[in-house]
């Protein structure tokens, strides 16, 4: 075998490897975003269509269910005066328990809610899917299985990519105390208010998604939300965490929450 042939095969292998690396970079930086945004937009549209088809009378809790005062077991949630509804009209029999706590269990890998964070822009809307495995997080935000249901007492915890797969949490460090995190599940709007500046921790710090996270400063049981993503931006050595507390909730029949317009 001639030296010329060996050199040629070696250089062809090197060129091939280089091309594959360039393609992989294009896949990671660009194509995962295309796929994720496509999947997320599709999920958002499907959820909205599904929710629009729900007849008002069969919507659990709408329109007769009392909203904020319906949580007698959660005295620590402050009620915002504007969020307190007028006395319910008894045209539809009231639902005995609070809808988010009685719904059917979330189906793994399926979207069940849409999250809005006005700080990230008016058009920022991502579906929340059940579970946090990589295949699920490719399609949107992931709800930690085993943490509380949306709007229920406990800690509704959600993870999202900071980079790649659509960069949903790219602006995570810009979150500030008081920022709204709005979630809709088709029947109810939940407005959570962030309590802390992004808190940096290590990946093994699973306590941040506890029902009452120790480092969050929350005094006792309540209806909380936790968002997690990676830190640094392109690394995985740490995690960024924000905690939020349920601030207001209202049935969708009463229109969009005020947080969208503030």
């Amino acid at each position: 075998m001639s030296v010329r042939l060996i050199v040629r095969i070696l250089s062809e292998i090197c060129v091939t490897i280089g091309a594959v690396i360039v393609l992989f970079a294009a896949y990671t930086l660009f194509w995962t975003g295309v796929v994720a945004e496509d999947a997320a937009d599709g999920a958002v549209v499907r959820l909205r269509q599904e929710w629009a088809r729900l007849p008002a009378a069969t919507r659990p809790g709408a329109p007769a269910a009392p909203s904020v005062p319906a949580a007698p077991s959660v005295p620590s949630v402050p009620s915002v005066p504007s969020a307190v509804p007028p006395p319910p009209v008894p045209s539809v029999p009231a639902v005995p328990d609070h809808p988010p706590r009685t719904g059917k269990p979330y189906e793994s890998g399926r979207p069940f809610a849409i999250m809005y964070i006005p700080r990230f822009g008016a058009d920022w809307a991502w579906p929340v899917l059940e579970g946090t495995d990589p295949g699920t997080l490719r399609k949107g935000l992931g709800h930690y299985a085993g943490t509380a249901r949306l709007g229920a007492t406990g800690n509704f915890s959600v993870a999202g990519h900071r980079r790649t797969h659509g960069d949903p949490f790219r602006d995570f460090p810009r979150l500030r105390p008081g920022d709204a995190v709005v979630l809709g599940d088709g029947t109810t709007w939940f407005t959570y208010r962030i309590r802390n500046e992004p808190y940096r921790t290590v990946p093994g710090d699973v306590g941040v998604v506890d029902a009452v996270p120790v480092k969050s400063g929350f005094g006792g049981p309540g209806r909380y939300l936790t968002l997690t993503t990676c830190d640094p931006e392109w690394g995985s050595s740490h995690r960024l965490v924000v905690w939020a507390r349920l601030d207001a909730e209202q049935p969708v029949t009463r229109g969009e929450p005020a947080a969208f317009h503030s």
Partner: protein
Amino acid sequence: MYGWIWRHLPGNAWVRALIALVLALAVVYGLFQYVFPWAEPLLPFNDVTVDGQ
């Protein structure tokens, strides 16, 4: 390597070029559809959860 493939493709130069293009696209499709999705979780910027691992 590429020379060997070229020599073993049938037809004249145009047909060979067309087949080579289709083969290249098939390889790219396979990479994007199967290889990269498998390799990508091995990179660091995929870990966004706290999991104690």
